[in-house]
């Protein structure tokens, strides 16, 4: 997984960003809309098997065609968005919930608190993600919870490091010293001054981690560790169809495009937000 730490938008980036933001918003809304829509309606039951109509090419009845069991790929892609987003969101929640307090504490207290938090993060980073997922699957069985735990675990050090880096920047500003002279505790300053000033950065990081979470979820279910059958998932749809790719290319193209749309959308959204949320420092 990549850690992206960027504190300031490049000055020349100002004009490029509205387009990135708009594209990102549209793509993300498309994916989120698909997920929400699948909660109430899909053209067919995404898990309904119809051996007679297997491997049908895209048509008016089946927009994205059908797979080897005759399941409607369009319905499957819609429902897959739901599980992909749910897993990625929950994993980002885990990362934010644990990583941000860790990072804030590391920056506020320095010393051994910082050492422990940062070296702990390094250890998690050094662990192969897949091995961790296998371990967790061995303990609590493969499924969405397994994917959330594995991806969430890797989000914790990302948010801890990003938070600490940005918080150190805030702690170097005189306003935090002014708050100390006003008798405020490090914890209170972290909540009142530091967190609001780095929130934009965390939001940007969260969108990026969301996109990485979607890739990771697709990867985990591809190897059978994530969402389990019969629940629809993009990764499993790809895994099921890999031997049929030459025969029925729609089986890989559509779920593949769905992953690309989600990841690209969230990344562009993050990029656009980064420019928007850069705090106004000077007049």
């Amino acid at each position, binding site marked *: 997984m990549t850690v992206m730490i960027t504190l300031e938008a490049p000055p020349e980036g100002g004009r490029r960003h509205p387009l990135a933001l708009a594209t990102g918003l549209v793509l993300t809304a498309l994916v989120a809309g698909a997920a929400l829509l699948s909660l109430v309606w899909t053209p067919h039951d995404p898990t309904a098997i119809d051996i007679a109509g297997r491997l049908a090419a895209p048509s008016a009845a089946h927009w994205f065609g059908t797979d080897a069991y005759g399941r409607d790929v369009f319905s499957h892609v819609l429902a897959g968005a739901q599980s992909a987003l749910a897993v990625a969101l929950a994993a980002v929640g885990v990362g934010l919930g644990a990583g941000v307090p860790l990072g804030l504490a590391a920056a506020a207290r320095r010393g051994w608190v910082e050492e422990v938090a940062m070296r702990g993060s390094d250890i998690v980073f050094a662990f192969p993600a897949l091995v961790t997922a296998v371990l967790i699957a061995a303990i609590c069985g493969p499924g969405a919870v397994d994917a959330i735990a594995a991806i969430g675990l890797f989000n914790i050090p990302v948010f801890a490091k990003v938070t600490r880096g940005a918080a150190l920047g805030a702690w170097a*500003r*005189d*306003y935090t*010293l*002014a*708050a*100390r*002279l*006003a*008798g*405020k*505790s490090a914890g209170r300053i972290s909540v009142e*001054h530091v967190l*609001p*000033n780095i929130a934009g950065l965390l939001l940007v990081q969260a969108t990026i981690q969301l996109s990485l979470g979607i890739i990771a979820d697709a990867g985990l279910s591809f190897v059978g560790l994530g969402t389990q059958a019969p629940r629809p998932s993009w990764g499993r749809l790809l895994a099921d169809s890999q031997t049929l790719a030459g025969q029925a290319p729609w089986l890989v193209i559509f779920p593949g495009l769905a992953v690309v749309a989600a990841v690209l959308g969230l990344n562009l959204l993050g990029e656009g937000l980064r420019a928007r949320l850069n*705090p*106004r*420092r*000077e*007049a």
Partner: protein
Amino acid sequence: MTPPNAPLLDIRDFSLSVDGRVLLKSLSLTVEPGRIVALAGASGSGKSLTALSVLGLTPAGARAQGSIRLEGRELTDLSDRQMDAVRGRDVGLVFQEPMTALNPVLSIGTQVAETVRAHRMAGRDDAARIADAILTRVGLPADRFPRSRRPHELSGGQRQRVAIAAALALKPKLLIADEPTTALDVTTQARILELLVDLVRREGLGLLLISHDLALVARVADQVVVLHEGAVVEAGPPPAVFAAPRHPYTRRLLAATEPARRRPDAPPPPVLPPLLAANGIVRDYPLARAGWWGKPAAVRAVDQASLAVHRGESVGIVGESGSGKSTLLRTLLAADAPQAGEVRLLGQPWSATTEAARRPLRRHVQMVFQDPVGSFDPRWRVERLVAEPLVLLDSPPGPADRRRRVEELLEQVGLAPADADRYPHEFSGGQRQRIAIARALAVAPDLIALDEATSALDVLTRAQILDVLADLSQRLGLAYLVVSHDLAVVRALTDRVLVMQGGRVVEQGPTLEVLDRPRHPYTASLLAATPTLAAQVA
């Protein structure tokens, strides 16, 4: 094309307006080779804009009239592409802040060589050779300053030398220096000025020097041009202009350059115990760890410093950057703990106790910071900012009382009550320092520490802030601890002064005595490096 006797830079009747606002009004000035012309004025007077106009870097939507000629060549008609060639090659630029002007990841050698290569003046090897020669010329010989050094490994003055080398790399005929020494302390400032003067005299460079500091201008310039609201109000050789200023604005600038003393002649006898007393303070900073297991080495920033501030008294701490004065101040405010020695506040333990025990005492000492931008949370409104220390009171006021208190404080420092609803970025530097003073006053402290509180301001704003501070001290019986490298401020605002060098207090005594008859050679060298108007004009 080129008339034989055309001046190097000839700005004639140049006007500039942005969105209908006239920022420069038919400005005229000339710079001859081998001469220094100073553009003086307060912030917002159009000094920097003039420099940017010469470089063709005017803000978007600006409308220009009049002419700017470089060796007889009209610059205002040139296209952006043609101006690119002029910038750097014909006109070099040096900024105020060398750290932001230099690229932090490039070595100093590459930094200067890049400029040469960007203008395709030489190949890689030749560029490196040219860079080496210029760095040596600006006082950075290769044996002591290997060309592989990065900007962060150099001091502020050395960085400014690199920036000057980069500006000179293409042998420009005109150098524009925008407040080149404002971010530096007095001794470094004197050395950089010496270098600039030497370059002008020996290489026949023309120098357009932009500065708000008339004393500095008087020291080096052949010609001074005083700008006010975008128009030239006075011009001439500095001794003539400063000895008999004709325009009231010039007179105001001159008066502000050497602010009048704002302390009573005889300070009140000290009351015991002192408000703040420090004894034998030692403060070390750890350096970066050499290896994984090695114990980090430490640098001693403050070494056995002692001082006392009594009720109603104003004490100054002077010294150049790195002398330990800011570190000492942080220790005095119990923001950092000393490694040895003790600080007591109102006779009670201050440094050698817990933050919980300090909390009830915190309201007695407050602080005003140097950086008017960084000392406020950009997301808070002024009301919340000024009210922040109120949590130190035994019974913090409710919302309505809080609002009233903030409005009262803002009026005390000369701001409007309605300013409470605005954000800090909506104010000018001087106004922000007023907000900072209001915040420091909120809990009615006995002592306010001023850490270079006027260093980021121009002389006119500095004079206004000094007035506010003097008035408050008189009315409220406030004590001040004034940390500054600006001797004019220390002279105007303090009763006693401590001189720090290398972490030690090398001299102390009544301010006028120390500044007029220094006993320690370091104090004498600080004073000698500080330009004064009297010395230049007399």
